[in-house]
C-alpha cells in the first residue's frame, strides 16, 4: 500500500485501490490511469468544470445526470462509474487525490518510484543518467527523477527517495564542519590547554 500524506489521501486511496482492482480484472488499468490523469489536467485547465464537480450548490442528482450525458461513451466506463460513485458519496472533491493515489499505485506496480533530486545547478544529461542508474540500483526500482534547482546547496546533491534522504551537498558539509569546529573549540577552551597564565 503506498504511503499517503493526509486523511483525505487515506480516503482517496481506498477509492484508488478499488478502481485499480476492478480495472485490473478487466485489464484496463493503464487506460484508466491515463484517462484519470488527463481528467485532472482538464480540471486544472477548466476551472468551471472543476467547480462543477466539487460545488456543494449543485445537488447530486443534477450532477449525476450531467456526468452521464457528458461522458457516457466518451470516457472509459470504469472511470465514469468512479465519478458517479464519488458523486453519490459526496466525495467529488477527492478526484485529484484519487488520481494521485492511482499514479502512486501504478508506479509501485511497475516498480517505479519518484525520487526528488535537488542540486545547486541544473543536471547535465550524463549526470542525470548516472544518478538515475545509481539510485535505481539502491532502491530496487526504476527511479523517476523529479529535479529541483536550489542554489542554497552551493554544490553537491540532495536525493530523497521515499523516506530516505541522502545529503551530499556542500551546504550540509559546511554546516557539519561548523558544528564540529564549535564543539572542538569549546572543548579546547574548557580544557584549559589553550590558556596562558
Amino acid at each position, binding site marked *: 500500500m503506498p504511503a499517503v500524506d*493526509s486523511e483525505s*489521501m487515506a480516503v482517496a486511496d481506498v477509492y484508488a485501490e478499488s478502481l485499480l482492482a476492478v480495472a485490473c480484472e478487466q485489464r484496463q488499468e493503464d487506460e484508466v490511469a491515463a484517462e484519470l490523469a488527463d481528467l485532472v489536467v482538464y480540471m486544472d485547465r477548466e476551472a468551471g468544470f472543476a467547480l462543477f464537480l466539487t460545488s456543494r450548490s449543485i445537488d447530486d442528482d443534477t450532477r449525476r445526470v450531467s456526468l452521464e450525458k457528458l461522458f457516457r461513451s466518451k470516457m472509459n466506463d470504469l472511470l465514469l462509474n468512479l465519478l458517479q460513485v464519488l458523486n453519490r458519496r459526496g466525495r467529488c472533491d477527492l478526484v485529484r487525490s484519487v488520481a494521485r493515489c492511482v499514479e502512486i499505485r501504478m508506479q509501485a506496480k511497475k516498480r517505479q518510484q519518484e525520487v526528488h533530486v535537488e542540486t545547486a545547478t541544473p543536471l547535465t544529461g550524463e549526470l542525470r543518467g548516472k544518478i538515475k542508474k545509481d539510485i535505481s540500483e539502491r532502491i530496487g526500482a526504476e527511479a523517476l527523477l523529479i529535479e529541483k534547482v536550489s542554489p542554497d546547496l552551493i554544490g553537491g546533491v540532495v536525493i530523497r527517495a521515499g523516506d530516505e534522504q541522502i545529503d551530499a551537498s556542500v551546504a*550540509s558539509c559546511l554546516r557539519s564542519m561548523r558544528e564540529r569546529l564549535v564543539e572542538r573549540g569549546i572543548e579546547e577552551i574548557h580544557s584549559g590547554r*589553550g*590558556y596562558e597564565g
Partner: protein
Amino acid sequence: MKFKVDEITSVIKQEIAQYTSEIDVADVGRVLEVGDGIARLYGLGKAMAGEMLEFQNGAIGQVFNLETNSIGAVVLGDYLGIKEGDTVRGTGQLLSVPVGDAMVGRVVDPLGRPLDGKGVIDSTLRRPLESDAPGIAERQPVDEPLQTGIKPIDSMIPIGRGQRELIIGDRKTGKTAICVDTIINQKGTGVICVYVAVGQKESTIASVVEVLREHGAMDYTIVVVAGSADAAPLQYIAPYAGCAMAEYFMYEQGKSTLCVYDDLSKQAVAYRQLSLLLRRPPGREAYPGDVFYLHSRLLERSCKLANRYIIVPESAPSDCKEAVNDKDYFGVPGRNEAKADLKALGRDDCEVRIKPGTGGSLTALPVIETLEGEVSSYIPTNVISITDGQIYLEPDLFFAGVRPAINVGISVSRVGGKAQIKAMKKVAGSLRLDLAAFRDLEAFAQVGTELDAATQRQLDRGQRMVELLKQGQYKPYHVADQVLSIFAGSQGVCDDLPVGQVAEFEEKLLQYIRDEFPEVREELIKAGDLSDELATKLKELLTNFKKQFVAAKT
C-alpha cells in the same frame, strides 16, 4: 588568565585539514500539521516508538504515536518555528540527556541545556531518558537512613536510601520547604541531589536555587527546570531527565542520590494535554489510560542497589577493588558467603568490604498537590499506591503554627525503623503513639471538664513535644541534635516549662551541649546508639542545664 588565540587557531586548522566529508543518509519525513507542542508527520517509515527526531529548525522531538498513515510526535523545543512541509529526520536513537560530574551545580532544562548562564556544559556522557528499573536480584532491602534534618520525619516517618516517600498536601503547606531542607541537610554526606521543578513559577524556582546556593547545597545538586511557561512535552519529560542524571551517579559511581520531583501532579496534567492533543482516548478525569504507568515507571527506578563485596587485606586503601581471591560477592547472601570464604581462606589479615562504586541508591521524594485535602482523587491515590509511604501536610496545622505541618497520625514510612540509627529508634520509639494519645486528649480537654493529674500530665507532655517538633525553615537538624532534643522531651524535662519557652530551651540546651560537653555529642554520632551509660550522663546534664535555664528566667 586569557586563552591563547594561536593555540585555538591551530586546533581549528588541524580540524579543517583532517576533515573528511561523509555523506549523510537519514530517514526523513514531512510535517503535516503542528501546534501546541505536538506535530503530525508523514513518512519516517522506520521510526520507532520513543525515537528522537530532529526538525528542520533544530528543535528536538520524540515519536509518541505510530499510526497507519502518520506519526504523532511531541516537540521538545520551539514548535513555533516549525511549519507544514518541513523536513524531519529520524536519529535512530532514543531520547537521552547529558549526565556526569559536569552537571553538578548547574541549572538545566530537561534536555540538559544550561539555563544558569554559566556556559556550555562540558560532558560527553549521556544516558537515555527512559531506562528499565533494576530487577529484584539487583536490589537489596533499604537499610541506610537518609536524614532529612526534619525532626518529625526523622523520628516518626524515617526515610531510607532507596525509598520512595511521597510528600502530599494542599498548596502552600510546606511541601517544597521539606524538600529543600532535605537537600540542604545532605551537605557533607556524599549524597548527590537532583531537584526537578515541573510546572512551577520561574520566580519560585529562582528563589529555591538561591536558597540552595546560599547554603552551599548547589555544590552537590543539579536543578532540572521545566517551568509553567515551558511546553507540555518538556514538563512531561523533566522527571525522567532528573532521574537519568541521578542514575548515572548511582550506577557508575555507586553513590547515594536523592531525586525530588516537584511536582508530579503537574507532570500528569502535561501528559494529559499531550495525550488529548494526540487523540489518545481519555479515561477518568480525562487522563489517558496509562497515567499510572507514567509515574510507576519513573518511581520504580528508585532503589537501593545490592552491594558487591570483596575480600581485601585490611591494610588495603579504601578504594581498592582487587579481591584476594578474584571473586565478587553479590548482595546480602553474597556477604554471608564472603564471610564464610574468608574464614575458609584462613587469612586473618583480610576483611570483607563493600566494593567501591557499588551499592548505590536513588531515593525519590515525589510531591503531589491535592485540592482541599482530597487525597482520594485519581492521581494522589495512584502515586500513594506506588510509593513506600507518604508525608501528609495539612493547612490547618500550618495555620495553627505547627510547621512543618505534618500530620504524623496519618503519615507513614513503610521502611520504618530500618532507616533509623539505633539512638533515634530508642528515643522516638513511642513518640507517634504518645502524640496520637495527646491529640485525642486535646479534643477532650477543649470541652472544659476538669482533668485528673495523669491526664493533665499527658496533655502537658504532648503540648511540649509538639513544640519541640516544630522547626524553622532552612534549619535542618543533625540527627544527634534531634536525638538530644527528643530525649529531653521524653524525659519530661520541659513538662513544667511554659509552652512558649520550649523552643528557647531546646536551642540553648543544644548550644550548651555543643559548647560544654562536645564529647557527649561526638560519642552519640560515633556510636549511633544511646547506651545506658550515655543516657545516664545525659539525664544528669539535662537536670543541671534546666536549673541554669530556670534560674536565668527568674
